[in-house]
């Protein structure tokens, strides 16, 4: 298959098109989980720019998801009575989140490792706390209640939240969202891959590998790092906008530290800096917990006759365990960049 890139592309597209129908046989709830998995994949790819490529540990990344979600919510809901079209809002989500990324990145430029992690963690919390409290004296975010009745996403005048009738087939809104999300995720994959193979991407990796040497090579590390923060954040902003339209409701509690850590785990467990690995990590960590959620209670009842540990605790327990095992035995992630990929790729061309 490697020799026929077009064939591979066709196979991928066919798989992506049919996937929701395969998953849908288990019920619409699973299509919904798939939709969320795609949002997480977008987030993981965005964080991968910052953590994987540029090597900057960011623990507040979910804030940009929040910024994107609230941007959408404020511009397409009864909150301010404005109802902008989605094709206008999404680029704005990317731009505003990108701006926030650069703004929050700026004070951290001299920090590395643990210190950087702590400061970004703080910034992430600051954004969430702002969202929580910007309801007085002027009500902007509606505080902890969040913003409801957000306009669903509509493409070419067709709302994605209604069932669509295509030549007699009933297509549920969850499927429509799936196709939109898959399209955007694919776009983000292409952008990531192209950036990685560019002058900018090389500069990011150079900074990750040796910041002093990168400077000595004439790289303005300040600007290039800010660019990484902004690009990564803009992906998160887009995902946030899609999330707001999909859910129809946003509130600050969706953007907690735990979510930041979750996305970071997707990147780290998948394989930092490797786009394929990061996608895999996103999919895995988005879907596995749901499988536990559905199987934990029946499995325990079958085994012990009663529920010993509630599913939520079990989920966190197994998640922590998985994290430790991966870090011990696969420190580069489950699917890291194959060691010789670039060496071999170069030799063939």
């Amino acid at each position, binding site marked *: 298959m490697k020799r026929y890139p077009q064939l591979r592309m066709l196979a991928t597209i066919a798989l992506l098109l049919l996937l929701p129908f395969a998953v849908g046989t288990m019920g619409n709830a699973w299509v919904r989980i798939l939709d969320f998995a795609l949002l997480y994949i977008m987030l993981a790819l965005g964080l991968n720019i910052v953590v994987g490529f540029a090597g900057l540990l960011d623990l507040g990344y979910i804030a940009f998801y929040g910024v994107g979600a609230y941007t959408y919510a404020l511009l397409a809901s009864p909150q301010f009575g404005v109802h902008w079209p989605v094709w206008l809002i999404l680029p704005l989500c990317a731009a505003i989140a990108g701006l926030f990324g650069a703004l929050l990145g700026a004070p951290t430029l001299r920090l590395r490792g643990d210190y950087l992690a702590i400061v970004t963690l703080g910034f992430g919390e600051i954004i969430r706390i702002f969202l929580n409290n910007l309801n007085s004296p002027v009500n902007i975010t509606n505080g902890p209640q969040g913003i409801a009745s957000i306009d669903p996403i509509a493409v070419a005048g067709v709302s994605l939240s209604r069932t669509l009738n295509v030549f007699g087939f009933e297509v549920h809104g969850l499927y429509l969202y799936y196709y939109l999300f898959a399209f955007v995720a694919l776009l983000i994959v292409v952008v990531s891959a192209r950036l990685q193979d*560019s002058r900018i991407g090389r500069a990011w990796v150079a900074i990750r590998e040796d910041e002093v*040497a990168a400077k000595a*090579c004439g790289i303005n590390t300040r600007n290039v790092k800010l660019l990484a923060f902004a690009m990564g954040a803009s992906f998160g902003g887009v995902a946030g906008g899609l999330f707001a339209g999909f859910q129809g409701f946003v509130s600050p509690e969706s953007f907690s530290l735990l979510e930041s850590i979750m996305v970071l785990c997707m990147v780290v467990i998948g394989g930092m800096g490797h786009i394929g690995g990061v996608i895999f990590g996103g999919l895995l960590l988005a879907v596995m917990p749901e499988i536990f959620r559905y199987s934990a209670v029946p499995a325990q009842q079958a085994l012990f006759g009663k529920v010993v540990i509630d599913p939520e605790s079990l989920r966190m327990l197994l998640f922590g365990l998985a994290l430790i095992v991966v870090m011990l035995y696969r420190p580069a992630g489950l699917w890291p960049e194959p060691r010789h990929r670039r060496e071999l790729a170069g030799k063939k061309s």
Partner: protein
Amino acid sequence: MSCLLEARGISKQFGGVQALQDVSLTINHGEIYGLIGPNGAGKTTFFNVLTGLYARDAGEVSLDGKPLPLGKPHAISIAGFARTFQNIRLFANMTALENVMVGRHARTASGVIGAILRTAAARGEEQAIRRRAEELLHYVGIGDRTHDLARHLSYGDQRRLEIARALATEPRLLALDEPAAGMNASETAALRTLIEGLRADGITILLIEHDVKLVMGLCDRVAVLDYGRKIAEDVPEQVRRNPAVIEAYLGVGVGAA
């Protein structure tokens, strides 16, 4: 000959250690200028101050009459002053080719939009970067290692890769910090040919080296540092006979005896 680099009164202190004390020197266009001295004399510190990695306590540096900015290594690189590192600092998980391509960063311009849209301009520039990087790898003699990861190269090849990466920034002045360290005799001979070739191509060289034969055979002038002070500066034959230099290298008493 006109002077390319001028350093005046450079001082640098680390806690109680006076690593550099009022060091001044000038390097002429087209010269190979040697900087020697016992271990801990301050040679590397001098490089780090000149290339902006360390802030200096006192002193001025100018390249071609223009003062070099403080604390901005990338700007100094862009001004045409490149360097290698004593403790090799390559981008270990990038290929040899990619390492050199990074060196082209400041001499090229395509940005995010060009990369995402793969515009004709961006693709053309990318090709030019790649071609130049391949040329440079051949030039320093490691054209056969193009697609190997930097960390898989031998020690001598890593040193040469560092030189190729530095050359990619189009320097007028190239500072080499112990380029022959860890090289065998034939590698050192090849290095010597390489440095002579660089000079022939119009690049001025500042060379720190412990290999006395290499320094004496290659350099037009040599300065000697000892305990952060410049104790001599002359053509190699004179430096070799200088009693202060002999004393610095062999210890107090021997020179006086």
